[in-house]
């Protein structure tokens, strides 16, 4: 259903994404891992059409995405939701308004300017917030919420779009381990319950292993690993991160359990 072929993005001299291709046949949860600067964010931004591709193509259900313009491009963006590392909410607006922004593609500028959203949309927004466990904060300003809560508001905005695909660009990189787990579990649940495709950029291996059905490893703009999480051996991880023998997975971890694991390991050595 999703075909990416020979996709390339150049910024002047530098090639951020270098001739990458992959296919996705059925909705699944894909983790894209790699170092900072490996081209993960650029890949996601090209899929959402926040950035234009220099070369290559993306097709979804037979439809070419990379060439869409104007209203058609915005229509695609409304079906392909994006979640950002820094949440990218409007800080001074209340939580429900931020979630309702997910419907902007279907509403006129005038209606949104005067806050004239249909009652059914407002009710649905609050139901989605409840599904993510933050309905109590519905009328607060987005900036008054903690990082983990703001990221869940961002996920609610994405769900409000009723999208086919959810792209998440390092959704947990600025969260503490507890909130990271809540957010990742929410994304996993959305995939399992709604059957939406989720593509998630991640810093860390163990998160990808734990939540994803398929892992794509990127290094310097190229795909160096593509397979099920179990195939992700320590050697494969070294290849992705370009690390030497001193590389240990625990060092990249943000998981609470991983902390316990390292402590256990330390205890075992002692």
């Amino acid at each position, binding site marked *: 259903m999703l075909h990416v072929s020979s996709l390339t993005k150049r910024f002047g001299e530098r090639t951020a994404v270098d001739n990458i291709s992959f296919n996705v046949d059925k909705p699944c949860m894909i983790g894209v891992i790699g170092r900072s600067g490996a081209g993960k964010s650029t890949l996601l931004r090209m899929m959402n059409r926040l950035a234009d591709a220099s070369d290559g193509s993306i097709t979804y259900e037979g439809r070419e995405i990379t060439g869409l313009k104007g209203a058609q491009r915005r229509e695609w963006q409304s079906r392909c939701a994006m979640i950002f590392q820094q949440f990218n909410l409007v800080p001074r607006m209340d939580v*429900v308004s931020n979630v309702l922004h997910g419907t902007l593609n279907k509403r006129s500028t005038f209606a949104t300017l*005067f*806050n*004239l*959203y249909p*009652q059914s949309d*407002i*009710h*649905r927004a*609050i*139901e*989605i917030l*409840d*599904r993510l*466990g933050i*309905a*109590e904060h*519905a*009328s607060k300003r987005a900036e008054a919420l903690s990082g983990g809560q703001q990221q869940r508001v961002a996920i609610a905005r994405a*769900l409000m779009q*009723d999208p086919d695909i959810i792209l998440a660009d390092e959704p947990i990189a600025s969260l503490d381990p507890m909130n990271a787990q809540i957010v990742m579990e929410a994304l996993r649940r959305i995939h399992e*319950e*709604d059957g939406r495709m989720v593509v998630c950029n991640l810093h860390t291996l163990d998160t990808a292993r734990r939540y994803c059905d398929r892992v794509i490893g990127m290094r310097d703009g190229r795909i160096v690993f593509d397979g099920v999480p179990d195939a992700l051996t320590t050697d494969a991880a070294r290849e992705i991160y370009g690390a030497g023998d001193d590389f240990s997975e625990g060092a990249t971890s943000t998981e609470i359990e991983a902390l316990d694991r390292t402590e256990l390991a330390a205890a075992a050595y002692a």
Partner: protein
Amino acid sequence: MTDISHPAAAAAPQRIADLQSGYMELARKKRLYGGLTLVVFVLLLVSGFMVADSRNAGGFWDGLANVGDYPAAVISEAWEKRAELPANLVKFFPALVETLNIAAVSTLVGAMIGLVLSFLSTRGLARWPRLVPLFRRIMDIMRAVPEIVIALVLIFMLGGGPVPAMIAIAFHTAGALGKLFSEVAENADLKPVDGLSSVGANWSQRMILGVVPQVAPNFLSYSLLRFEINIRASAILGFVGAGGLGYELRNAMSWGPGQFDAAAAIFILLFAAIVLFDQISSRYRNRLTEGGHA
């Protein structure tokens, strides 16, 4: 539609319904305020326009149909005499130089006075802290009096020419830049100033060596912006006899048909000059504010 299969939603539908109706109440209130604001805005707009129209000598609606006539006359006549355009451009070029000259000198003088006034009126930097309000009021007055009023008074006293325009614009610039400078200086770090005090530097040394290096990019950027504004101001002052392009433009316009080719040439010169300096200064200001030290 999103499928709500979360167990909590089924367990507590009442709580959700309460939240929903609570938020609807809030949204209705917001919409009401928004609607009221819109009504007030439209009322003010319409009533303000009616008052202005009723005091208008000619009547807005009657004149509206003729709005296009003057530009059409200017353009058609200028087009007929287009062969003379280069000669006209050359002829009025000295007037453009005069206008730019007035703007440049008054910006320089005004910026220097503004610099001193800004330090005198910034809390934490002031030479005489008790006199801060006094210097602030002085700057208020300098900003409040329009350039054209000062120019008219000076022309009455000194006679027409570029010097009254220069003084008038410099006076206004000093007040306007002083205010902007002082807001920048307020955010300057005081530690270097303390350091200089500790070696026995006097007030001017502390300001010039301790504060100016920190605020120079912002000060320069504001001064360039002011220079653009002053080009326009100096062109306008020409209308009241202060020389430069404005003076020539008034003559060309008030003599009516037959001189429109000159008017068109002046418009082109003025427009080109403003666009040119706008471009130069915005490029330079970008470099300053982006922190490029190259």
